[in-house]
């Protein structure tokens, strides 16, 4: 009788062993899937370099901020106020709230009239997509400050079509001809890039000609309104890091 019972226990134990084995194999296979890393050596090296650069960038930022903090701590109250004012001025220049001068290019947009006796030719008009394309190109080639007519472009500046007119910074642009003043770190390179760019063709399709002049002193107008920061959040800060 006792022997039979032990027999049963052994069988149940064997079944349990099987179940345990199955569970752990299933667990193993699921784990394996997530951990699979099929990058080759080159990709891993590239991502390592990327991370190292990021780290260096972060170290540099920390160093800069620490120096600034030290400055604030060491200075007297008057000096503190002065350096705060300096910081504000610097930030205003960065944000585009001040007039800025420097080497750059002036792009003049002019209407082109084609002689066509059969149709009455309408006056060429800009559209926002074309202008956005041009601005993207400029930014891509290293432009630092851009003003379309009297409208300085900031990080918040919209360019859009409203009732058939192009609005920049929520103000309508005047009719053609129009000049775009651009500052760049390397304005000659920017000029060369623009001369080769397809942008000329796109503007020509809309019967607008682009004239690009390279100049040693270009003035870009300040941003005409105050910047609205409502609804703008710090995206970089994670929870708990504040």
């Amino acid at each position: 009788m006792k022997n039979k019972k032990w027999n049963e226990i052994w069988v149940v134990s064997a079944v349990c062993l099987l179940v345990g084995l199955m569970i752990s194999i299933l667990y193993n296979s699921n784990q394996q899937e997530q951990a699979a890393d099929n990058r080759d050596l080159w990709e891993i090296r590239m991502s390592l370099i990327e991370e190292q650069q990021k780290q260096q960038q972060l170290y540099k930022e920390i160093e800069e901020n620490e120096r600034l903090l030290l400055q604030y701590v060491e200075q007297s109250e008057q000096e503190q106020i002065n350096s705060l004012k300096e910081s504000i001025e610097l930030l205003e220049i960065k944000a585009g709230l001040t007039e800025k001068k420097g080497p750059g290019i002036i792009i003049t947009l002019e209407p082109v009239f084609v002689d066509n006796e059969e149709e009455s030719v309408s006056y060429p008009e800009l559209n926002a997509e074309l202008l956005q394309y041009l601005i993207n190109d400029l930014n891509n080639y290293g432009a630092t400050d851009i003003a379309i007519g009297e409208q300085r472009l900031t990080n918040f500046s919209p360019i859009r079509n409203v009732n058939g007119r192009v609005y920049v910074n929520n103000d309508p642009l005047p009719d053609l001809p129009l000049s775009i003043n651009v500052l760049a770190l390397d304005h000659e390179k920017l000029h060369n890039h623009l001369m080769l760019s397809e942008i000329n063709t796109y503007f020509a399709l809309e019967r607008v000609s682009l004239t690009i002049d390279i100049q040693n002193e270009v003035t870009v107008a300040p941003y005409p309104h105050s910047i609205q920061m409502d609804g703008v959040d710090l995206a970089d800060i994670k929870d708990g890091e504040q």
Partner: protein
Amino acid sequence: MWFPILFLIVGVILGLLTNITIPDQYSNYLSIAVLAALDTLFGGLRAQLENTYSHRIFLSGFFFNVSLAAFLAFLGVQLGIDLYLAAIFAFGVRLFQNLAIIRRLLLDKYANRRKKSTTF
């Protein structure tokens, strides 16, 4: 009583140490088989507590359920119907039922034992 649990743990450790894996497309079958095995185990436990445990039913139930579940999954893949969902549903419901009954039986046992000890 503790022997099977010990073996279960030994099985898990053995599987983890050997690091055996199965291909991705078969993991469906294994997951259902595991569910069926668990169902049978808990069914056996319940039968033991109800004093209706039968050695043959337990053993045949284990292998039959596991292979039926795997076969159902296989059939589902061949026909393009998610038949394994039926197996998961059936075994899941039974698992919960068995667990509920086991809980009730254990509670009853506990209550009975307390009653006995207080009457003495």
